[in-house]
């Protein structure tokens, strides 16, 4: 009885969510068919769907999607690991803060699009180079969130840890990072998106196979429906990965709203 009720509300929520998205798509449809925006740049949803299906049937788009997906995912894993580790290091050690934080703050605002040519010159045109740029570009949300979470441990919890004489490492692992967990998870959600975006930019600039290159070529050859098919795929990818992340988040943050 209770279970059916729960399933019903879940279905209700899902369909509501779909309806909202449907409303946005309807808006898109109106904008494109009414000619507010030139069709060459904003294709109709139907045309986009058609390009999408054609591309997927040809197998090409599927391969691109897979390439971008793996790049995004490995970049994201790297970025999260790097962000948490560096964040924990800087957030908990004054010395680390003095030595490396300013350098990081300097690198942070450098656009991937501007750094990439430099990286290509130094390291060549390879998937590894792009991955490094992705990991580097996507780690900031996680890093900042980790820093914030570590800095904002409530005074009393700090004192608990001191009175238990927790080692520095234990404090970071058992109090600092769990305390930062909600922030880190939000950061990781962002990081996932940034990772996808930088992957795409990387594919565009460093000429690696993937959705980024497909989008770039479509944009360049004014194939708006193909461009949007790529964007739709990106949206779907981002959505799918975020659903997984949201589920993980729900179980990890169970304590927040029990």
């Amino acid at each position, binding site marked *: 009885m209770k279970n059916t009720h729960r399933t019903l509300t879940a279905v209700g929520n899902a369909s509501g969510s779909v309806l909202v998205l449907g409303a946005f798509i309807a808006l898109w449809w109106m904008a494109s068919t009414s000619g507010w925006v030139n069709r060459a740049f904003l294709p109709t949803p139907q045309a986009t769907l058609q390009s999408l299906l054609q591309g997927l049937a040809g197998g090409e788009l599927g391969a691109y999607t897979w390439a971008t997906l793996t790049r995004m995912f490995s970049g994201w894993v790297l970025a999260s690991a790097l962000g948490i580790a560096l964040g924990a290091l800087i957030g908990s050690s004054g010395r680390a803060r003095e030595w490396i934080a300013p350098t990081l703050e300097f690198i942070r605002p450098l656009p991937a699009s501007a750094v990439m040519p430099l990286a290509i010159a130094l390291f060549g045109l390879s998937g590894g180079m792009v991955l490094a740029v992705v990991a580097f570009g996507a780690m900031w949300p996680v890093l900042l969130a980790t820093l914030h979470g570590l800095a904002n441990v*409530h005074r*009393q*919890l700090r*004192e*608990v840890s*001191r*009175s*238990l*004489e*927790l080692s520095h490492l*234990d404090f970071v692992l*058992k*109090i600092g990072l*769990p*305390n930062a*967990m909600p922030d880190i998870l939000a950061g990781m959600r962002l990081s996932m998106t940034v990772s996808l975006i930088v992957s795409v930019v990387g594919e565009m600039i460093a000429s690696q196979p993937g959705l980024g290159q497909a989008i770039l070529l479509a944009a360049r050859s004014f194939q708006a429906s193909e461009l949007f098919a790529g964007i739709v795929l990106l949206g779907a990818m981002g959505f799918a990965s975020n659903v997984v992340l949201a589920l993980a988040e729900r179980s990890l*943050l*169970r*304590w*927040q*709203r*029990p």
Partner: protein
Amino acid sequence: MTDSVLHFDRVAIELGGRQILSPVELTVKRGEFVCVIGPSGCGKTTLLRAAAGFVTPSGGSVRRKGAPITGPSREVAFVFQDYGRALLPWRTVQANVSLALEAANVPAAERPARIAHVLRTVGLQAHAQKFPAQLSGGMQQRVQIARCLAQRPDVMLMDEPFGALDAMTRETLQDELARLVREEGLTVMFVTHDLEEALYLGDRVIALRSNPTPELPSLAALIDVPLPQPRDQLSTKEHPEFLRLRRELYHYLGH
């Protein structure tokens, strides 16, 4: 003075530019139970925090076993007044207690038994899997006490530890605490607002005063409680000496 566990050597404390505690001179011996009373905001918590090494006195020093205190130690357990904030919200009751064992590097195999034991002591065995947010105020306070017990400290600094407990739970824990002091030589400093509790538990009771001046220092009174040990909820509280001391303290507190 080999058995002096805590020694307050003319400890004066300033906070936010205001003199909170004027020089306090006090020695607490091993196995002694000292209760601290005084009006709200007079500096009881501050005194305990100095004993724990959380604040550094602006004057004088606190010594533990003869050595000046430089910072908190695992041998000293602190029960915070603000119990809600002293627990890790992301850990269950049992994992919160476990923290103390992890800190002391107790092997993982030994932990469950020790956790179960202290949870039974505070009457929370049925709630081991809950998160702090799922507990009532009094239950949170007991989790904190359980963690401090699991720590097996030499000294317990307890800041209104039983404040949110009903009379019965409170009496059970009072007796449990008294037993630990007697049997394991635990030394306790205990802040409370309940005069009866102070007299029932304490070997000595110190009364602090707000806004100390050189003429009227922080330490308003230091009262010995010569009631026989072990004490008992019924007979001790009807003891003529108990009633006399209660009246005396009542007056110290401004009545």
